[in-house]
């Protein structure tokens, strides 16, 4: 259960300095660069996104905010689905559960956005520990069905037996979000230089959380866990027979993905000042599966694009005059086309085009 003790780390670091300096230092440098470049890319992306979205794609900032929230949800979900190879059909428990926990916390404990975020995420992690502990006993389709069952169970719990907490079918309406760090009005406007890019503080807050989430996901995927997760996806039995405690790593993948769902769910409450009962319904679990597959399983950025495209069709295309009423059909067609043409999702498609243009790396 423990990481290596501090002195061992120090020794290892000392060894590297003296013995393997050249090669290792270079590799370290290249990794630092890669991590920083990933973060910078995300920063630039979320910074220019609302401007491009609002001006060229008929978008509006509130939807851009929602896209990032679901993007965080999908990025975390991909750690479970794309990297570890586990299909959960119950992640609404963690998204919706965190949304409710955040809402109730804001109404009865503290309205500080950061504390609300922390409370919602902590609740999601706790739920994931329990649900994962019970569901991961079985693999494949049984795992998917078990998680679905827990999802529906939580939906019906929130709908009626726990209605005194959740306000039942009407959704939780008493959300009370205060100002950020006591000074910044989170639902207010932004100071001058930022106004060129975005028009409200909420987007900035969500964007910062998105960057942090992407950075965390990137970290995890480049840690030993990333390698172990992919090993479990590729050949679970072999992973067990090299001496890895596969079950505990799977539980960790489940909890980590739920933590991202928790961040997203809490932000969802902060964003909307309201928690609909719908957030626990099984369609919410299905949405994140579709977003992740659409964006590209097994890629870091893909799920962000998947979430964006899904919400774009749901909210913008559905408003088009002639096509609008058929948006479900359009979503279905887009999904089929993406999966057939680009089995690795939108991100796989981007990769493919980039390789065509650049001439392709020989991997």
């Amino acid at each position: 259960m423990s990481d290596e003790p501090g002195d061992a780390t120090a020794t290892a670091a000392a060894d590297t300095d003296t013995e393997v300096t050249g090669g290792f230092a270079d590799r370290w440098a290249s990794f630092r660069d890669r991590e920083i470049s990933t973060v910078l890319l995300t920063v630039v992306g979320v910074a220019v996104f609302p401007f491009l979205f609002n001006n060229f794609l008929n978008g509006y900032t509130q939807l851009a905010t929602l896209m990032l929230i679901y993007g965080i949800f999908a990025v975390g979900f991909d750690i479970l689905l794309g990297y570890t190879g586990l299909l959960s059909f119950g992640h609404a428990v963690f998204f919706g559960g965190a949304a409710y926990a955040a809402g109730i916390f804001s109404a009865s404990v503290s309205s500080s956005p950061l504390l609300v975020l922390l409370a919602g995420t902590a609740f999601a992690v706790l739920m994931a520990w329990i649900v994962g502990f019970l569901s991961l006993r079985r693999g494949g389709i049984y795992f998917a069905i078990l998680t679905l069952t827990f999802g529906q169970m939580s939906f019906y719990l929130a709908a009626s037996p726990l209605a005194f907490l959740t306000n039942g079918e009407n959704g939780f309406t008493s959300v009370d979000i205060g100002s950020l760090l006591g000074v910044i009005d989170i639902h207010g406007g932004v100071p001058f230089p930022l106004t060129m890019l975005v028009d409200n503080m909420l987007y900035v807050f969500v964007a910062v959380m998105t960057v942090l989430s992407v950075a965390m996901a990137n970290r995890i995927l480049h840690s030993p866990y990333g390698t172990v997760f992919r090993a479990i996806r590729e050949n679970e039995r072999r992973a067990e027979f090299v001496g890895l405690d596969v079950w505990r790593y799977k539980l960790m993948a489940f909890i980590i993905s739920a933590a991202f769902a928790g961040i997203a769910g809490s932000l969802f409450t902060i964003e909307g000042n309201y928690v609909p009962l719908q957030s626990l319904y099984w369609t919410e679990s299905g949405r994140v599966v579709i977003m992740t597959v659409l964006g590209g399983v097994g890629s870091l950025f893909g799920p962000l694009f998947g979430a964006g495209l899904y919400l774009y069709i749901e909210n913008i295309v559905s408003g088009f005059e002639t096509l609008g009423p058929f948006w479900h059909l359009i979503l279905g067609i887009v999904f089929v086309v993406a999966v057939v043409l680009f089995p690795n999702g939108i991100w796989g498609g981007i990769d493919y085009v980039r390789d065509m243009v650049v001439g392709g790396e020989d991997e």
Partner: protein
Amino acid sequence: MTVLKTERLTKQFGGLTAVDEVDLEIEQGEGVSLIGPNGAGKSTFINLVTRRLEPSYGEIAFQGDSIIGMDPHEVVQRGMSKSFQTASIFPELTVKENATIAALAAEHGSFRFNFFRNQNSYPAVDELANEVLESVGLYDERENQADSLDYGNKRRLELGIALAAEPDMLLMDEPTAGMSPDETKSTVDLIKRVKEELDLTFLLVEHDMEIVFDISDRIVVLNRGSVIAEGTPTEVQNDPAVQEAYLGGVEE
């Protein structure tokens, strides 16, 4: 020193006794082969020892301690590694990553909370992975996807993964099954070499008698779940019970 010891080890599937009260001892540094006709219980025996199957009764001790009740990964962590009958690798990862996973498990144990540390901050893991790839002759292929290797090399990689666990004892389930004569020869050479270099103790299950007689110090013959003969290659070859089991089974 005794590395592996089984006492009255038995596995019953319904009315069928696949492994029947087998007593076996393997000493440090010894290369033992388990042979027998089809259905003799060889694979079941291996699966019992690696804890994939729960024995009906009997005892298994590894390095002096009972391993009954342990999970397979715990047995591996104690130093018993297994090479599979098929090329059981991580196909979509690179050759290097395949070795790295095994090295991670060897260096870090079965589980650790280190999901915020970069992989590159563990040079010992990297070193071990490279060493293993060198020793199975796949270092030059390290950047290729494991899937793209030919069958012989996949099996070598598989063996490499098993060796990366730095085992005290290696179980090999038909390591040359499905290989061409050339691949078989190079694999046998490889096994001989690592046995010498690492003073490896192994238990081999194999159909090919030539290989068995070539690399074993001792041979154990299993028939219908029981040990019917045991001894050096020459002793076993001349044992009438063995000849009966292999040649006379048809008349019954």
